[in-house]
């Protein structure tokens, strides 16, 4: 299911896009690019041009991703300090930010950084990424074990207000519009009724609804 979502997100990325992938499911997106997709991946700890994971034994302790895991850097990559890294993020130089979510709502509000009294990991770079990127894609499983994550209004503390553009799950591709949540694509394995039942928000079905 995660692979299916990651594959669909990969199709959203255009040649030359500067892209930041969040930890977890979004990281998988890099594995599903076509060979002709030339994407520049940004790592908020301070570089552009993230390459593949190095083979065992060839890790460089000086080159890690934002999760602290060994990665590589492309030949055309570049390192920078944290102030520059977030100038890139807030300054609108990131084309696409892909993040997971605990909740997302009709207005494009996102909650993905804490559950009060249970899970308080800190927001890391998420609040800046969501506010600064030109396009914000939420990539997540449609429900939390059956409990809807797409809501009329987020209940958890927000990461940012009104910044989400597109939601991609195993069930559907949904655009956040001024009129509400517009379903652009549906996974043929599900019916529209099933999709509506798994969502706690109003859905507008596109006249040009396609299969994922």
């Amino acid at each position, binding site marked *: 299911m995660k692979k299916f979502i990651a594959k669909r997100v990969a199709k959203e990325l255009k040649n030359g896009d500067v892209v930041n992938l969040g930890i977890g499911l979004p990281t998988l997106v890099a594995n599903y690019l076509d060979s002709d997709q030339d994407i520049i991946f940004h*790592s*908020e*700890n*301070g*570089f552009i041009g993230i390459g593949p994971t190095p083979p065992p034994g060839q890790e*460089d*302790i*000086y*080159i*890690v991703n*934002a*999760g*602290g895991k060994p990665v590589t*850097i492309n030949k055309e990559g570049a*390192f*920078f*300090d*944290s*102030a520059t*890294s*977030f100038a890139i*993020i*807030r300054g609108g130089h990131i084309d696409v930010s892909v993040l997971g979510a605990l909740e997302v709502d009709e207005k494009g*509000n996102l909650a993905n950084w804490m559950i009060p*009294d249970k899970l*308080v*990991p*800190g*927001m*890391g*770079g*998420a*609040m*800046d990424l969501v*506010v*600064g990127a030109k396009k914000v894609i939420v990539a997540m499983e449609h429900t939390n074990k059956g409990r809807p994550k797409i809501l009329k209004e987020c209940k958890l*503390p*927000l*990461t*940012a*207000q*009104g910044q989400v553009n597109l939601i991609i799950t195993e069930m559907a591709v949904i655009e956040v519009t001024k009129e509400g949540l517009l379903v652009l694509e549906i996974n043929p394995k599900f019916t529209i009724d099933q999709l509506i039942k798994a969502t706690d928000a109003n859905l507008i079905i596109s006249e040009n609804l396609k299969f994922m």
Partner: protein
Amino acid sequence: MKIIELDELKNLIKDSMTIMVSGFMGCGTPHKIIDKLIELGVKDLTLICNDTSLVDFGVGQMVVNKQFSKIMTSHIGLNPESIRQLNNQETEFELIPQGTLAERIRCAGAGLGGFLTPTGLGTVVAQGKEVIKVDTKEFLLELPLRADVALISSHIVDKKGNCFYRGATRNFGPIMATAADLVIVEADKIVEIGDLSPENVVTPHIFVDFIIDGGSK
């Protein structure tokens, strides 16, 4: 001479000080200095650091050792002891968006009185902060962040204190070096003055007070 022994830290870092430590999940953290601070047992420190790393790596070990009374950071999620101390209110935590943390430090070092950011608007981060409208857009006013001491790591440092960073270790080093009363850099390698090309110097020596030989990692 700027080069000092690790032992000298006992005269420079005292209880209740505010320290900034460079590094991102331990990458770019001055690990020998951290080991020494654990040995010295300085306490009631305020920590300013991107994250609290892991329980057995970088500043995370000092969290386990309960050397901080306050921690200002963007992420604690990979250190269960930080989460425990936060949940039990044993340590005061201020969680700051990463870009805001970096820019607050940069501001302090650059002599600015603060900055306006869209990050955090409409979230708990905005609580108690002034919202300022510029044209039609709203921003949060964020204030500069300084420390008594900045502890940073650099790959090659010349004897004057010029710093070259390797790979992703650069992160918070260059900005923290500008925003503390005392700046101590742990060098993987110390070279003679002139061995570093001026073009490759990222942190100019005027920001560095002391150099400690960290030895190659």
